[in-house]
C-alpha cells in the first residue's frame, strides 16, 4: 500500500465507493435491529393490545409499542441519513435530510391523533384506519430502504416490505367479507411477523464485505 502521496479525484471517488459498500454492511445490521423491533411492536399492536378490555389501556399499550419502534427507526435512520449525504454526492443528487426526528415524531403524533379521534368518533372505521396506517408504514419503509440502499435493495428488505404490504393490503381487501372471523388476519399478520423476524436474523448475520482489488492506493 503506497501511503502519503496526493490522491487523484478518481482515487478519492473509488475510496468513497468502498466506504459506501462498508456502510451498506453497517446499515444492513442496523436494519436488522429495526426489523426485530418493528415486528415485536406490530405483534403487540395486532395480537396483544386488542385483548385489553379498556380502550385507554389498549391505546397506551399500542402507543408504547409503536413509540419503541419509533426510537429504533430514528436510530437506524440516523445512519441512513448521513449515508444519503455521501451517496447523493457520488450520484449527483441533492443532499437531503428527510428521515430526521423533525419529520418522524410529528408524523407519529399526528397518526395517533387521527387514530384516537377515529376510535372516539367513528369506532366502526377504526380497523380500516389502522390498516391504512400500516400501508403508509410500508410506503415509508420502502422510501427509507431506497435511501439506505440506493443501488440495490437487500433481499431481506424486499421480503420484509412485501410481507408488510401483503398483510396490510390483504387485510384491507378481506375487511368487508370476514369481519367476524379473525383466522385469516392471524395467518396474514403472523406470517408477516415471522418474515420480519427471519429478515432481522438474516440481516444481522451477513458476512463482512470483502474488499475489491484496487480500491486503495
Amino acid at each position: 500500500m503506497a501511503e502519503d502521496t496526493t490522491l487523484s479525484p478518481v482515487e478519492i471517488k473509488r475510496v468513497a465507493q468502498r466506504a459506501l459498500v462498508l456502510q451498506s454492511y453497517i446499515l444492513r445490521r442496523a436494519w436488522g435491529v429495526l426489523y426485530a423491533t418493528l415486528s415485536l411492536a406490530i405483534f403487540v399492536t395486532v395480537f396483544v393490545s386488542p385483548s385489553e378490555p379498556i380502550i385507554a389501556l389498549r391505546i397506551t399499550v399500542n402507543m408504547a409499542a409503536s413509540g419503541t419502534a419509533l426510537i429504533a427507526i430514528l436510530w437506524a435512520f440516523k445512519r441512513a441519513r448521513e449515508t444519503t449525504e455521501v451517496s447523493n454526492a457520488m450520484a449527483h443528487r441533492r443532499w437531503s435530510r428527510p428521515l430526521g426526528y423533525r419529520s418522524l415524531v410529528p408524523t407519529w403524533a399526528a397518526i395517533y391523533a387521527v387514530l384516537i379521534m377515529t376510535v372516539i368518533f367513528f369506532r366502526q372505521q377504526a380497523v380500516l384506519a389502522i390498516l391504512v396506517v400500516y400501508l403508509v408504514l410500508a410506503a415509508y419503509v420502502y422510501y427509507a430502504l431506497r435511501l439506505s440502499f440506493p443501488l440495490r435493495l437487500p433481499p431481506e428488505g424486499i421480503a420484509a416490505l412485501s410481507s408488510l404490504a401483503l398483510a396490510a393490503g390483504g387485510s384491507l381487501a378481506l375487511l368487508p367479507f370476514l369481519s367476524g372471523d379473525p383466522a385469516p388476519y392471524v395467518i396474514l399478520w403472523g406470517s408477516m411477523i415471522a418474515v420480519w423476524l427471519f429478515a432481522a436474523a438474516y440481516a444481522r448475520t451477513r458476512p463482512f464485505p470483502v474488499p475489491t482489488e484496487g480500491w486503495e492506493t
Partner: protein
Amino acid sequence: MRGEAGRRDDPDVARATIKSLKKQLGDPSLKSSTRVLILILLTMNKKMSSVELRALTGLGKGSLENHLEKLATAGYVSTRNVKSFGVTHQTVEVTEKGLESCRTLLRRIQSLDV
C-alpha cells in the same frame, strides 16, 4: 440563475474547483486512501469505536492509531476512552472541521464529474 450543469460547464468555475481541490488534496492528512476512508466512514456515522474501524478497514491496532493521530493532528477527528461495564473502549468522533472538509471534498469531486 445558472443551474448545477451550467456551473459545471463553466470553465472558470471548473478551474477554481480544480485549484481548490488540489489544495485540499495536498493536505498531508488526506494523502492516504485509508485516512480518507476513515474520514468518510466517520462522516456517515459521526462516532465509531476503534474496534469497529479496525474491522472495517482491516488495519492493525498500531496502524489505525497512526492514521487516527494524523487525522487528529489536522483537527478532523477526536478520540476518547469510554469505560462501560468495566471495559475501556476507544471511540473516535469526527469534528465539525472533519465533517466540513469531507463534505467539501465530495462536493468538489461531484462537481468535476470524474
